[in-house]
């Protein structure tokens, strides 16, 4: 029962998302950014292919997150605002099934988009170097783990806030997530005391999205410890599950006035 409901909602969400023009606009800009990395490489000294890979992978990560945020924050809110949720919740469906369906529908959309961007990027690298690089695929997989978490956050905010505010909150989460590692570095430099404890607590509580960033290792052919890869994957999945649980708890008792 549950799996079927979630599948039906997810399929409809996928249909909704792929009929949203914003998605294609972002895909266009992502493709442009990936191809522009080749031009950027011409202007640099050193290994041009490293620039192409670094800029290309960063573009995929940023545009993937933008897709997750801009579409994810509207998904639940639009259902409530447009009152389509009235007919839906009156059907024999649990509210968590609805939320999970929405989440998985968007994840499916993002997987398709990530694949499209990845193919463009891999094609460019293949044309330039004549070599198919498997490690790029690994970097893309970890971008996907990051998107699992960012999408869950976007949906959480979408449960109780307007799309504009939710987008700002989610973008804030994304930025904090990418810079929170510096808190850890700062904590090490501060003298022991309340300041150091506070920084330690903050860096433990705030999300660390740099866990998913293995671009440097991939671009510069550095070793990638299996332990780190396993930790990052588990971190993404568990954090996303935690955020989704929060979203369900908020959504479960909500009145649709």
């Amino acid at each position, binding site marked *: 029962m549950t799996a079927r409901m979630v599948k039906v909602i997810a399929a*409809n969400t996928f249909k*909704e998302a792929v009929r949203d023009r914003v998605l294609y606009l972002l895909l266009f800009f992502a493709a442009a950014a990936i191809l522009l990395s080749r031009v950027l490489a011409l202007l640099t000294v050193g290994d041009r292919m490293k620039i192409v890979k670094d800029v290309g992978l960063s573009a995929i990560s940023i545009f993937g997150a933008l897709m997750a945020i801009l579409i994810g924050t509207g998904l639940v809110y639009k259902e409530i605002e*447009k009152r389509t949720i009235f*007919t839906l*919740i009156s059907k024999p469906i649990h509210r968590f099934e609805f939320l999970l369906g929405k989440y998985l529908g968007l994840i499916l959309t993002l997987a398709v988009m990530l694949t499209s961007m990845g193919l463009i990027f891999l094609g460019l690298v293949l044309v330039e170097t004549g070599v198919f690089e498997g490690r790029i695929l690994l970097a893309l997989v970890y971008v996907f783990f990051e998107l699992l978490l960012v999408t869950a956050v976007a949906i959480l905010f979408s449960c109780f806030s307007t799309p504009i505010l939710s987008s700002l909150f989610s973008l804030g989460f994304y930025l904090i997530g990418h810079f929170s590692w510096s808190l850890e570095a700062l904590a090490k430099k501060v003298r022991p005391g309340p300041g150091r404890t506070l920084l330690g607590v903050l860096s433990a509580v705030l999300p660390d999205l740099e866990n998913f960033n293995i671009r440097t290792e991939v671009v510069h052919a550095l070793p990638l410890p299996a332990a780190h890869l396993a930790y990052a994957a588990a971190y993404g999945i568990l954090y996303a599950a935690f955020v989704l649980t929060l979203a369900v708890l908020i959504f479960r008792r909500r*009145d649709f006035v």
Partner: protein
Amino acid sequence: MSAILTVDGLKKTYSQGFIPKRREVLKGISFSVSEGEIFGFLGPNGAGKTTTIKCVLGLIFPDAGRIELCGRPHLDPRSKAEVGFLPENPYFYDYLTAREFLDFYGQLFGLAARVRRERIAGLLKLVDMERAADISLRKYSRGMLQRVGLAQALINEPSLVVLDEPLGGLDPLGRKEIRDIILRLRAEGKTVFLSSHILQDIEMICDRVAILVEGKILSQGRLADLVSEKILFTEIVLSGVGERDLAALGEPLSAQAGRTLLKVYDEARIPAVLELVRDRKGSVHSLLPRTQTLEDLFVGMVRPQ
């Protein structure tokens, strides 16, 4: 007949604004809907009709009270599987076509693809939307959305159909068509619960009604019991007799194109009026006894509030 929907002591308060201000919308309402009837839920705008319906369907949570649907608690998915719902001013996924839209709801009820295909074809025919089946809902007019919304409410062949203001915003022909469909549903043995503030519609089709005013049910029961059959007055349209001569027999209301509308409260005076018209060689154009209508009852209840 057994009750398909029972609402007992339902209360709901909303908090609004930055500094929350509490507003009591439902003040402990109770009613029950029997199987196979058309039950009208009447009330002026803001009386709490939609809030009651949303409580019944699990869209909002009541502060107090008990709701039973098909003999089970109302939030039980098995109860919800027996219900079809058309909201007021329906909004649907406008990126879908009518066929895709109905198919989506069919899937939520776990209907097999073949069953869905058959039901969708039948429902599109019922609501006369076969021509527009493959156009996206974005291009639909309000009346078309109402029809396809009704089809959506019937996709699971529900025992109870809940319609919130189903006739609002429709032209007279559209209203008649929806009324006919509602009557057909009753003939098929389904129960219909409909809310409306358009009294004529309720009067024409409902078996029983409940009148809700400011969150309280002021009256409920069979229409025939609520509305008295007693003649309140008789309206006679006549010509050929001066208003002054009629004043003693009744209340002359208007005179247009030589015709006078006379309101006679005392039935015994009607023969005298007819006699007078015959004497003056005038004519009687119409004679209409007026019994109490639902509107009279409704206005009488709402006004003192």
